[in-house]
């Protein structure tokens, strides 16, 4: 190996190390902080000094945080199931049936997924109070449909477009109706796509903040992001950094594990939009 080549490869690995440290350090530091209590909290420690579970006990033993986690799980799961249910049939129609105005319809759906949420906030607020859903999980399930549904339809359509025509033709020859084709022929092939899309939509719903902040008003109906954002200490000045970091770690670790398990599928799902075409 020439000196020049060696220098290049050292520079390359240095860049790799910088990227990795930059990516994981903030989360690593949150974990370190979540185990620190008392005065240790107010020293800049790069490595954990002790493992004290007090912050975790404080958060999980608190009156509302376990409830907030349950709210988030319920809202995100229901939203995803509802969106996938509507999206499977819709994306079959969009991907496999030729009809006039299909391109326009697809663009409209994409446009809805780009809606700034604030633009519908006033109208949704009215709708939700009219339906009597204010401060209930159903207000969030209803409003989250605006971003989960277009997204799932869009991604499932691109997946469904790639399924081989021959399978469908064979089913048609055998006299299968479109409904049978979806449920008996395509659905078994679509499981990987459904898992990916569902997971991405779940993450979106789990992380949503604006609607959750606006459409809930009591501590017991808040979702996790709102609870963490509004977690406060005994006084205005005293921000409980230890418990905040513990709560952050609790809600983030499951997400990170899911993302790492499904990382290949997630990358495929993220890039399934326009990039593929």
């Amino acid at each position, binding site marked *: 190996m020439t000196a020049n080549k060696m220098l290049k490869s050292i520079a390359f690995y240095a860049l790799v190390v910088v990227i990795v440290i930059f990516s994981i350090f903030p989360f690593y530091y949150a974990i370190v902080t979540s185990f620190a209590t008392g005065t240790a909290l107010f020293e800049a420690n790069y490595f954990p000094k002790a493992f004290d579970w007090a912050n975790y006990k404080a958060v999980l033993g608190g009156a509302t945080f376990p409830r907030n986690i349950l709210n988030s799980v319920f809202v995100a799961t229901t939203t995803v199931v509802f969106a996938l249910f509507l999206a499977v*049939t819709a994306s079959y129609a969009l991907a496999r049936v030729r009809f006039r105005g299909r391109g326009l319809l697809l663009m409209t759906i*994409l446009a809805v997924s780009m809606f700034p949420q604030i633009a519908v906030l*006033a109208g949704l607020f009215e709708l939700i109070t009219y339906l009597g859903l204010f401060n209930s999980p159903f207000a969030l399930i209803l409003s989250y449909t*605006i971003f989960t549904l277009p997204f799932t339809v869009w991604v499932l359509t691109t997946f469904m477009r790639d399924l081989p025509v021959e399978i469908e033709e064979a089913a048609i020859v055998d006299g299968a109706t479109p409904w049978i084709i979806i449920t008996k022929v395509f659905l078994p092939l679509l499981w990987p796509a459904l898992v990916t899309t569902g997971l991405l939509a779940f993450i979106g719903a789990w992380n949503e903040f604006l609607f959750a902040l606006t459409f809930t008003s009591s501590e017991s109906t808040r979702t996790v992001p709102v609870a963490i954002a509004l977690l406060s200490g005994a006084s205005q000045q005293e921000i409980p950094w230890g418990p905040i970091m513990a709560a952050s770690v609790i809600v*983030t670790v499951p997400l990170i594990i899911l993302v790492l398990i499904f990382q290949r599928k997630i990358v495929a799902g993220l890039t399934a*939009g326009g990039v*593929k*075409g």
Partner: protein
Amino acid sequence: MTASKPAIARDGGLSLQQQRQKAAFWFLAPMLIALFCVAAWPLLRTVWFSLTDTSLNNLYGGKWIGFDNYLRVQTLSNGTVRYKGTLVDPAWWNAVWNTLRFSVVSVVCETVLGLIVALVLNAEFKGRGLVRAAILIPWAIPTIVSAKMWAWMLNDQYGILNDMALNLGLISSKIAWTATTDTAMYAVLMVDIWKTTPFMALLCLAGLQMVPRDIYEAAKIDGINPVKVFFKITLPLIRPALMVAVIFRMLDALRIFDLIYVLTPNSAATKTMSVISRENLIEFDKFAYGSAQSTLLFAILAVFVSLYIWLGKVDLSGEGGK
């Protein structure tokens, strides 16, 4: 509705194509109704509210006041002309300027850094899988959590970043990053770039992986400078993927709310259009005024997207050429 052609029954039966189109209509209907209820109708109501004097506590008591929430010209009895409304509100224009500044800077940085990370990940080296897993972590962390994490790291007295910078001699005294007017925007940018560069990198990587390897080999044999290869071959080939990634990021940046609301609450230096609209809608009881601002935000985004797609000839449908 163009979703279904009128199904004409000919001799008691439908052709296969007609039967499929009829099914397609029923498959699409529930989704379209759902989208109408949560997107189109609320949007129309927001626009309507912006033309009235509705208040938060009395949603149905608003009177039509035309465009007064946007711009209202008053001529006082002594002859002086006064302008009122969002369009002459300095706080609104400050928010517009903040949003534009934030969006342009963050998206440019994320695109450049994302490309660099994608080029690294596109090379073959030991531990590539680990690096890819590592860069997914910022993306997987909820925005609110990352805002809190960074708020702690940027804390003026106990923050680790001040500690690092002091030890390295970069700063001479501790900086209150999120509270100081001059640095608040940098803090927000830092967190946003950290959080969203992975997304850009993954989209760029997907583009890069579609470039055939033999092109690079041919260039190598011809002895072309790698930098030249990047600008003359790689960049033009991944341009379509890049254009789509940039518009998605840009739209996200233009409507940013959560990060700014949590990291720099009530700071005029970072308040964006979404933040100021919600403040008026919900907190200041200027429901109609806030509706006008969110309508304006929607209009700005719509114009931007149309121009971008038109000028950049972006094919979003993925159907081009098929």
